[in-house]
């Protein structure tokens, strides 16, 4: 099996965020070794205490929490993107490994395929 890293870069209000999670969950459901890296505005998806219903949206929390249950091995969050937005890993609603730019380069090297969504 070829391993797959999904890089999710969209804010949770964007539909693209949900569609990136769908790809990760579909890949994991097919037993593809899979990781997801939240980067840029994608890090906002992980923040606790959001109320999507206030803007007429459905929360992403259930899909995010399904990632480890479906067997998505690596849940990663970009340190630089967190820092740029004044956020901390402790605010994340699920356990995500914080990775710096050098580690991201290694990840991209390590995975067989990369999808930026």
């Amino acid at each position: 099996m070829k391993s797959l890293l999904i890089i999710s870069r969209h804010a949770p209000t964007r539909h693209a965020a949900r569609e990136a999670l769908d790809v990760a969950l579909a890949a994991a459901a097919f037993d593809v070794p899979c990781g997801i890296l939240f980067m840029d505005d994608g890090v906002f998806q992980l923040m606790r205490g959001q109320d999507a219903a206030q803007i007429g949206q459905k929360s992403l929390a259930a899909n995010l929490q399904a990632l480890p249950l479906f067997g998505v091995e690596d849940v990663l969050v970009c340190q630089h993107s967190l820092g740029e937005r004044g956020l901390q890993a402790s605010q994340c609603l699920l356990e995500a490994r914080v990775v710096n730019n050098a580690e991201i380069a290694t990840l991209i090297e390590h995975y067989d395929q990369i999808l930026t969504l």
Partner: protein
Amino acid sequence: MAGLLCFHWVGFMKFAIALLAGPQDPAARSALEFARAVLSSGHQISHLFFYREAVHLASLLGVQPQDEQDITAEWRQFITEHRLDAVVCIAAALRRGVLDKAEAQRWERPAANTAAPWELSGLGQWVDALQSADRAVTFGT
């Protein structure tokens, strides 16, 4: 952009190409030009996958001004001419009102707007395509 990718010649390769952007995004054309270049270089396209806004390419109802190019028609011709497997993500398509006859009936909608060569199917098709391809390339953000 895939413009910077450089492939060493190791015989023909199987490409899986995914497009995420809609007909109004220049990425729709970049992807088509790339797909043409893949075939003209002697490689194969094992799968095309249309996700997110790219599902609108499968709509047969768009009307372009006569002095503008019709990217959806170009994609359709390219897929038909080369008999390619062109899968449109069914969940993304339903959300955006791109339905074939079967889905229009299933959801009791008054009209269908897509048909062959496009095929509505699940994300699993893309996951499979990624596994079997030598190179997977995505266009659009």
